[in-house]
């Protein structure tokens, strides 16, 4: 196990993400929507940092993508999780949506998230914010805002922990079979 980001680094990366978003979207009305489950925490954190920066409340929500995944017949890991509720802050039509996820890897979760979100309405635009971009994309998807870029082997996975869900903020690399 190799540690990529310790607790203060996680906070720094989130702050960095918030600044990127702030600079890019100043003046526009947007919602932060986290992809369940770690993206949900990231989204909430981003929203709270952005609220401070903007001096006005930024709404955040949660998107459950279980029903939109492309691995139904090849189930593993995340896809075995229960179907959860998508909890959006309001009508997303004509809004700017910032999709938040902890790790960008193959791009498949993001693809599912895009399909899921358009079933709820027609946003003006969608931006993608990720805490860690670990490369090795399988789909033509890139993040608009990246907190940290990591070089990670194909047999390794990036594990993100948040104090809200796991007790501490931590990003580390583990072997796939350790998980």
């Amino acid at each position: 196990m190799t540690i990529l980001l310790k607790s203060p680094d996680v906070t720094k990366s989130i702050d960095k993400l918030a600044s990127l978003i702030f600079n890019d979207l100043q003046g526009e009305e947007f919602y932060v929507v986290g992809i369940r489950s770690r993206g949900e925490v990231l989204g909430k954190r981003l929203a709270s940092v952005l609220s401070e920066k903007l001096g006005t409340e930024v709404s955040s929500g949660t998107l459950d993508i279980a029903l939109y995944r492309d691995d139904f017949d090849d189930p593993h890991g995340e896809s075995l999780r229960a179907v959860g509720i998508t909890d959006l802050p309001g009508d997303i039509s004509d809004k700017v949506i910032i999709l938040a996820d902890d790790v960008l890897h193959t791009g498949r979760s993001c693809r599912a998230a895009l399909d899921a979100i358009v079933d709820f309405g027609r946003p003006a635009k969608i931006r993608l914010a990720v805490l860690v971009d670990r490369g090795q994309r399988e789909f033509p998807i890139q993040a608009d805002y990246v907190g940290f870029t990591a070089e990670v082997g194909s047999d390794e996975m990036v594990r993100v922990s948040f104090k809200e869900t796991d007790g501490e903020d931590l990003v580390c690399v583990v072997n796939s079979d350790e998980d």
Partner: protein
Amino acid sequence: MIRRRDKGFKWTRKHLIGLRELSREEIEFILDTADGFSQINKRSIKKSPTLRGKLVVNMFFEDSTRTRNSFSLAASRLSADVIEFTKKSSALSKGETLLDTARNLEAMGVDTVVLRHGAGGASKLLSRKINAAIVNAGDGFNEHPTQALLDVYTIKKHRGSLDGLKIGIVGDIANSRVARSNIWAMTKLGAEVTLVAPPTLMPPQVSKLPVRVSYDLDEVIEELDVINMLRIQFERLSSNPFPSKREYSKWFGLTSERMKRAKDDIIVMHPGPMNRGVEIESAVADGKNSVILEQVANGISVRMAVLYLVNKAAAQIEKERGKR
């Protein structure tokens, strides 16, 4: 929002045959999953692509517009293809056997069979003999699991939990699959169930079930938090278990008069279709305590959850088989 279960839990059943064999955890998992689906039914785009390319066959050997439509809609909202196979026949009629019929459908590549059949155990039989996932939509007077799931789902929506609730199930217990599935689901979720019916409509050795038994609705009505009025199935009552509708309704019908003695917030349920004026008075069926239409709406979410879960488990089993 319903509390989420342990992350460690994994649904593994490819068939939903009955609730008797399910654990509390499994039942709650279905209900939680149904919560995720209830949302889809409220959106403007009421569909998810989850079961795209899967074939669901509604195999109905008994009339049941409501359950069949509910399953069809559930499957469609998950983007599955649906074939309707309806054949009205008695459980004992000759001709093509259930297995032959099912094997034919299997040859067409069916992924899920939703089976309604007049013989108890028909779903179990299919699950042993064909490869598709089987969802029991009612077998004889054995079980009707999705009906009971939508019933407890509806109760949970109103009360948060069934723990400690006093629930009365009134009517033809002996010939009712709804009663049996309800007994298992409700007692597993912690409710205290009382069966209310004339002795001629009670099954043999009913006292061995985890329930209380009463022959007097007036004796129990005051204490009930929920009352589930079963439909008197006249087509099944060849044995003439009570003298007349009028006499039945006098003792076991849910009338406005009886409702006056019930708790103010009692939940009134009925699996439908109702015989208004027999087991339930119209004013009660349409009254403020009635959740009968909610039950119908919740049925779609629950059935979506079930179709999703059995297909998911089937995919998992198939994958593990591939590995070996």
